């Protein structure tokens, strides 16, 4: 038992509890907080895997940016607890339990086969230098591809989330009315005939 084991167990337990918190809470804001806790404890686990850079990125990108966005949206839309009126998805709940067990069984199998190999990586594996070298040599094409992805995400989210400008609304209404009017006009003609 070393300190790293204690660290692992503590943060693994924290992560699991918080993950349950994510899925079992009714109030989205509690779920979000649960997820933030999971993310931060995973960051600590990354540290125990000698991946400090990834750990820092985990907190900066996930906890610092993505989850802020979530919390922001929850507050912006003021989503509170929602009582469900319909129960159409109830069968999914019954599906969930056996699925959970099946996946747990699978996990047991995996864990059993993997066993306890010695780590082959040096402690320098997760250093900024190593990662940067990989990023700008072998991974240069995927790296460039992510820029397309992000540009597209900016365009897409701006497109979907901005409010309709008055002129936009006008144009859409005109276009819809045009197709309706056409239909009505012919109807009248037929009645007249």
């Amino acid at each position: 038992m070393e300190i790293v084991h204690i660290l692992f167990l503590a943060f693994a337990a924290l992560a699991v509890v918080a993950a349950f918190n994510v899925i079992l809470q009714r109030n989205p804001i509690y779920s979000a907080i649960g997820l933030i806790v999971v993310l931060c404890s995973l960051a600590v686990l990354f540290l125990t895997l000698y991946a400090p850079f990834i750990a820092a990125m985990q907190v900066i990108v996930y906890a610092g940016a993505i989850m802020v966005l979530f919390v922001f949206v929850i507050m912006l839309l003021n989503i509170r607890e929602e009582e469900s009126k319909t129960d159409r998805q109830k069968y999914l709940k019954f599906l969930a339990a056996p699925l959970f067990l099946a996946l747990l069984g699978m996990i047991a199998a995996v864990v059993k086969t993997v066993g306890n190999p010695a780590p082959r990586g040096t402690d320098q594996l997760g250093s900024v230098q190593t990662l940067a070298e990989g990023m700008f040599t072998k991974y240069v094409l995927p790296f460039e591809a992510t820029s397309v992805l992000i540009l597209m995400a900016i365009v897409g989210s701006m497109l979907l989330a901005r409010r309709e400008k008055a002129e936009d609304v006008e144009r859409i209404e005109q276009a819809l009315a045009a197709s309706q009017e056409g239909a009505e006009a012919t109807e009248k003609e037929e009645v007249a005939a």
Partner: protein
Amino acid sequence: MQSLFNSLDLQFVLGSLIKIAIFWIFIMLVVAYMVYAERRVLAVIQNRLGPNRVGWQGLLQPFADLIKFIFKEDLVPLAVNKALYMMAPVIVLVPAMMVLIVYPFGPEVPLPFGGVLSQLINDLTARVGLNWNVDLRTINLYITNFNVGLLYVFAMTSLGVYGIVIGGWASNSKYSLLGGLRSSAQMISYELAMSLSVVAVLIQIGTLDLNEIARGQGDWFGLRWNIFGGPTLAMLPSALIAFVIYLISAIAETNRVPFDLPEAETELVAGFHTEYSSLKFALFFMAEYVNMTTVSVLATTLFLGGWQGPFVEQFPWLGIVYFLAKVFFFLFLYIWLRGTLPRFRYDQLMNFGWKILLPVALFNIVLASVLGVLFL
């Protein structure tokens, strides 16, 4: 279990705990007197006296304030979301304090009586059957060394926003909510510019380790600071631009004048902490000043050479003096700005962040890379 107590880890943990305690007390004192200094300096700027009754020149004022905070009635409004309402101030303060562990406050210094002290500890632990080899003749003036220290700082800073936004939401009051949302939007926007401005400096120094960064600025009689271009004077333009961007966005990050929109009294009462009182309010208050301090410390380390200065090599303890002098300069700047500048409007703030600061920061990265390729 014996091996656990013998392990280096435990010594490290204990040593760190002691250092953390010292740093904590120190930073609390800085915060306390920062508040006092702010009131006095503002008073001077506005041509009045300021607090000068408690103790000599009012020097005990911070403690009086503290006592007042503790004994005030702790009001919890009825409609709040209790758990989150209680958590919010803590979420704000903890990350703000956690940042401190990576900053180098000075070089490796000889500890007076260090040899005697380590002898004493070694003897005592040997008597309980432990085999510690403590060496305290010289100590490092930082709590831990982290090879991605700078990223750690950004990671922790980015967590502070939750406290504010959750505090605003949990209060269940429209002023708080608006203040919280404004604040989070502002912090996210300016964090981008802040992180990007730092990239220019990183190109000069090529490391994320704050200790290395501080140590690397020691040439030229301790004046080869990054703001002067670090390794080569040719980088001066990009370094200066980076410094200005950093300074502006740091002020916005800490929600201070002229970017203190989240607590604009005229429109939002007191912003996200409208519904907080007593000790919980004190925590928010403290967090704000701790954040100001840490941001100043980072500015010092990144741009102004950290603890470097003339004669530091000969007298290591001088480092900490230089360091504090630089930090206090930044803190004074904060107060000075508060005394001089009016507040921005919200749209001006956002436009400034996204349409001016961010593009300039991006441009500066390109500039720094070009200069770096040409001259480094």
